[in-house]
């Protein structure tokens, strides 16, 4: 039995199906991220868990208890919003004390807990300020301290960092990892930033059109996606059609063999092959590698690397990411040899 179980949850807004038969089992203490494009239903699921949405069908079970019909105030989950949603009329300390006063803790205990929480997020010196006197990052820390103050076992976060600039976002990511480690609370984190998801999560549930497409660790989703959607959504990727005959593949060059654990079942003969730009190297193939020829159509400088826009003899486009020292003028328009390791090539059966 899981700690937090979402069981076949469906939610419709009139004609729109925001959640379509979503199931997810969260383990205690896990950092799990809901990742997906805009409008894919991430917020809808999070707010259903928080109790603000009433699902049309399905159940939510927390710690063995049905909570599907429970009011938000009875769920004891922490909730952090994108816009922080601090109480503008209360000081930082009073914001953090709010859930404790509601729970009628005694004064001394509240004072101690507020101090402890503000220490945890490094804001002890700003206890008396009003939210509007704080920077975005500081406000977000207050929101975290407030949501964790009453000791919830689950913290729900809806794009908490999306209003911050990039530098601050990276600092706050570290902060979130630390908070997760130090508190041991289960984090359910919504984002549409894949880098954030890869950095933070134990597991990622990838959403598309109201469904969870795949749910797994970041490494496995990145290295061995089972669906074209995930292969495309997580990181940069190239797709070419491949065919197999007598155990040998054609698509990127001809006659190469894929590792058995990657390969298709015996009875199939066509698939989409993927290969990440960083796994393509310039130069002829060595022993056991896959070699192919391609025309360099364009070279795009991107700092530490350059993106080569290639075209295969089959007419399919491909992007390779190579060291930036390469001279654009020298190679543009030329047909060159490239190679890749067979282990870097992925196979997605037709229709997945």
């Amino acid at each position, binding site marked *: 039995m899981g700690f937090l179980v979402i069981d076949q949850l469906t939610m419709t807004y009139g004609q729109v199906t925001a959640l379509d038969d979503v199931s997810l089992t969260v383990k205690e203490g896990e950092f799990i991220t809901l990742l997906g494009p805009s409008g894919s239903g991430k917020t809808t699921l999070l707010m259903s868990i928080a109790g603000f949405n009433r699902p049309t069908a399905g159940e939510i079970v927390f710690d063995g208890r049905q909570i599907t019909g429970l009011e*938000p*105030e009875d*769920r*004891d989950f922490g909730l952090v*919003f994108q816009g922080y949603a601090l*109480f503008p*009329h209360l000081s930082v300390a009073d914001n953090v004390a*709010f859930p404790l006063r*509601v729970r009628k803790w005694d004064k001394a205990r509240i004072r101690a807990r507020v101090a402890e929480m503000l220490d945890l997020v490094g804001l002890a010196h700003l206890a008396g300020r009003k939210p509007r006197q704080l920077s975005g990052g500081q406000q977000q820390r207050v929101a975290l301290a407030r949501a964790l103050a009453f000791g919830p076992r689950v913290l729900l976060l809806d794009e908490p960092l999306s209003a911050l600039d990039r530098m601050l976002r990276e600092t706050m990511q570290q902060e979130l990892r630390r908070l997760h480690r130090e508190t041991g609370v289960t984090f359910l984190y919504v984002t549409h930033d894949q880098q954030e998801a890869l950095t933070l999560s134990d597991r990622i549930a990838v959403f598309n059109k109201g469904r969870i497409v795949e749910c797994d660790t970041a490494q496995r989703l990145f290295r061995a996606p089972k669906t074209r959607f995930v292969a495309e959504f997580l990181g940069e990727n190239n797709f070419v059609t491949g065919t197999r005959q007598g155990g040998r593949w054609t698509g990127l060059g001809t006659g190469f063999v894929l590792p058995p654990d990657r390969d298709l079942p015996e009875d199939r003969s066509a698939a989409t092959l993927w290969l990440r730009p960083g796994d393509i190297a310039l130069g002829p193939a060595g022993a056991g590698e896959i070699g192919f020829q391609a025309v360099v159509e364009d070279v795009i400088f991107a700092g530490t690397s350059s993106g080569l826009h290639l075209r295969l003899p089959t007419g399919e486009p491909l992007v390779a990411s190579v060291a930036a020292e390469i001279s654009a003028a020298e190679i543009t328009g030329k047909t060159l040899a490239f190679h890749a390791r067979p282990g870097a090539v992925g196979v997605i059966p037709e229709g997945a």
Partner: protein
Amino acid sequence: MSSRFERYALLLTLPAGIMVLALYALPILQVLSLSLTEGKGAWANYSQLFTSRAVAKVVGTTLNVSLLTTAITLVVAYVIAFGMIHMTARSRRIALLMVSIPFWISVLVRAFAWITILRSQGVLNGALMGLGVISQPLELVYNRLGVTIGMVHYMVPFAVLLLYANLTDIDRRIVQAARSLGARPLTVFLKVWLPLSAPGLGVAALFVLVFSLGFLVTPALLGGGKTLMIAEYISVQISTTRRWDLATALSTALLIVVGLLIALALRSPTMRAAFGGGRR
């Protein structure tokens, strides 16, 4: 600093400004000057405001009725506005329409309508007696009660719109945050909705109070000459007893009191926020 356009944009308000000056400021200045020169002079005119028992009674009645009107209006309007922001978009449109219907009906018509409802042989007393709830008609009109009913009815739509605008501005995620932190409905209302709508309530209270202090038609008709308020008293002094000295002095005093009220209210930071500028 202001850009070129911003400086010239000021010109767009010029026609309105001239109208205000000609039709508003000049007559007021004239009233002011009359209050200083009419009768036995400025000192006599203004000191009689404090010595005359009639004036004291009228001011007392006005304050009493105005404060009561303000209090009742705010409660009623808050309940309506609070209900409106929780409605579905469709019901809200209908509710807004209903709230604005009174604006289309003249204050005179509305006062007469209340008389037909409230007078001793009126609709309400008739119904209550018919049902046997009462044996004697209740005195609902031609007294403070009648005036207050009429004034509340006049002021509620304004207050609803003011409060509705303020309540719509409140970030609903703050309310959700409170609930997620464990606050039950009453706590959410007292600790979140009420403090966050304080500026709106302040503005609405000021608006209703200022309006009420100068009310003429409604108290004149529904008070039946017995509940005399400042505006009607001034009008009687001018058109019937021809006491320009008293009328202009009282007018000026009322203007000063209202001005002070607004100035005082604007000193509070929440009010300043409501009148623009320092948004959270």
